[in-house]
């Protein structure tokens, strides 16, 4: 038939195969580059941070003298903030998700809520800081307190928890809901005893991952007026506070090399906390996740 010009196909074959090989090389190079960056980053932080890492570093307060400085106030501040953020964001997030998945009718309002949540997820964290500064710190008169910081963080991670919970609830199959209704259970009984327990591992995984994002978040709390130099531990919800990332920012922004090494030590602690949280999340996902 002669539809295909064999000569020209043959002529081009070599260069096409070479292009494929070259492209593959480039793609692998790019992937290796990302992995290499992670490796260098971890190596840098370990070599800079390990010398200062000790038990004293964890239990000491911040100090002007690098050899005496520690992260105790920042560590407890982070725990206090999480103690507010975790329950508030969990209740609001799961409540919203249950409403959207189980109760909401398919109308304009529901669509609006859904679009609103996906847009909230894209708002820069520093803007949440401005929101918290006006609403919680000034209007509600909470000051730069643990409560104001925790509530701001809750709103920041709310969209992540809502989306994760919705996905978890959606994986619960219709059949077991209908079985529950068939046994005479009401809608709320079905949600409470069937849907929620079945979706809980997924919800918890999403919540812990969202909280680990909040642990590493700096900007909103800086804007709220969290202190950078704190030599006390928060006593109640209305105490002033600092958190780990803000302490690290404070050390990083000083010119002396010693404080940079302190920051690296703090980063090791922060990364260990995040690693533990992520491991728990992965563990829950693998251990308790039901496949229907």
């Amino acid at each position: 038939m002669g539809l295909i010009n064999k000569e020209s196909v043959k002529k081009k074959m070599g260069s096409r195969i070479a292009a494929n090989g070259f492209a593959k090389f480039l793609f692998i190079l790019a992937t290796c580059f990302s992995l290499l960056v992670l490796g260098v980053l971890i190596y840098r932080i370990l070599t800079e941070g390990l010398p200062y890492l000790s038990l004293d570093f964890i239990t000491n307060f911040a100090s002007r003298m690098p050899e005496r400085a520690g992260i105790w106030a920042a560590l407890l501040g982070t725990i206090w903030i999480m103690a507010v953020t975790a329950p508030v964001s969990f209740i609001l997030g799961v409540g919203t998700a249950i409403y959207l998945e189980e109760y909401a009718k398919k109308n304009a309002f529901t669509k609006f809520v859904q679009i609103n949540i996906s847009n909230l997820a894209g708002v820069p964290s520093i803007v949440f800081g401005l929101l918290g500064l006006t609403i919680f710190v000034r209007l509600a008169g909470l000051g730069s307190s643990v409560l104001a910081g925790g509530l701001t963080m809750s709103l920041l991670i709310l969209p992540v928890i809502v989306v994760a919970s919705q996905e978890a609830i959606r994986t619960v199959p219709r059949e077991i809901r209908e079985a529950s209704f068939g046994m005479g259970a009401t809608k709320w009984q079905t949600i409470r005893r069937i849907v929620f327990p079945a979706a809980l591992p997924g919800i918890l995984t999403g919540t812990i991952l969202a909280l680990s994002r909040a642990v590493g978040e700096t900007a909103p709390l800086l804007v709220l007026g969290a202190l950078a130099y704190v030599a006390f531990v928060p006593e109640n919800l209305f105490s002033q506070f600092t958190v780990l990332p803000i302490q690290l920012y404070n050390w990083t922004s000083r010119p002396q090399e010693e404080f940079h090494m302190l920051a690296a030590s703090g980063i090791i602690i922060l990364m260990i906390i995040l690693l533990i949280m992520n491991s728990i999340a992965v563990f829950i996902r693998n251990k308790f996740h039901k496949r229907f």
Partner: protein
Amino acid sequence: MSRDKTNQKSIRSMIQENKSSRSQSAVMEKVVPKIFLICAIISIFTTLGIVFTLLTETFTFFSRISIVEFFTNTRWFPFTSDENADYGIIALVLGTLTVTAIAMVVAIPVGLAVAIYLSEYASAKTRKMIKPILEVLAGIPTIVYGFFALTFVTPLLDKIIPGGISIFNALSPGIVVGIMIIPMIASLSEDAMNAVPNAMREGAMALGATRFEVAIKVVLPAALSGVIASFVLGISRAIGETMIVTIAGGSRPTADINVTESIQTMTAYIVQVSQGDTGYGTTIYYSIYAVGMTLFVFTLIMNLLAQFISRKFREEY
């Protein structure tokens, strides 16, 4: 006999209990949805709160500084006496866009290459190994990236670039923001490319296409809406990024951009003011809301654009 009696009693009491619990659960059935509705409404109030906060404080700001000056002045020097102060957002916007542009120059080619490698070349085993590592890269707090930019990337650039580079500059945070965004672009683009049905790849391969040709001429065009949307979301992330540019970018807002010199982004300015001892009610205090509003509008447009692209140009198979 006596046993029967107790049975009867217990059945009667069971019915009684059932009735009371039924009326109880009837109340629950009505109350519970309302509670959840309130939770859902709080998320709307968050958005309203953001818009309300930014608008009111920005209006106060514009009652002191003319809106024309805000958008046309190219100098941003708020920390002087009131009559000498300059509030020209252009300097901050240019700082932000410079960092974003550098970040995208790093993140788009690398992110896309990683996505193509993972979805078209890598074996299932390799993919299973690399994806969690990328997730780790995505989960690192920005403060850590900021530290990395200041203490590693800047000194490195200082050695590489002839003539050196100042401690605070646009290049180093730009590159590191780009690195931070690589996993995001890679995973979103890979999702889009994975959604392309295998039959299309097999069809192209049966016609004699190489893997590279399949990736570039078949899969990429088919997944283009998702890939472009991932770029736009990446840009939005870079614009809103705060800690990396605050730590490594410096605090010298300028309209004549030189990537080896100190700059200031919108986000870095907001942090700088919150860190200082600016009193409540001063013009500088209100200026962070005007800057925040500009930032919010920029990222909102980008996010809406990303949603529009992925919805409008999606190819259905």
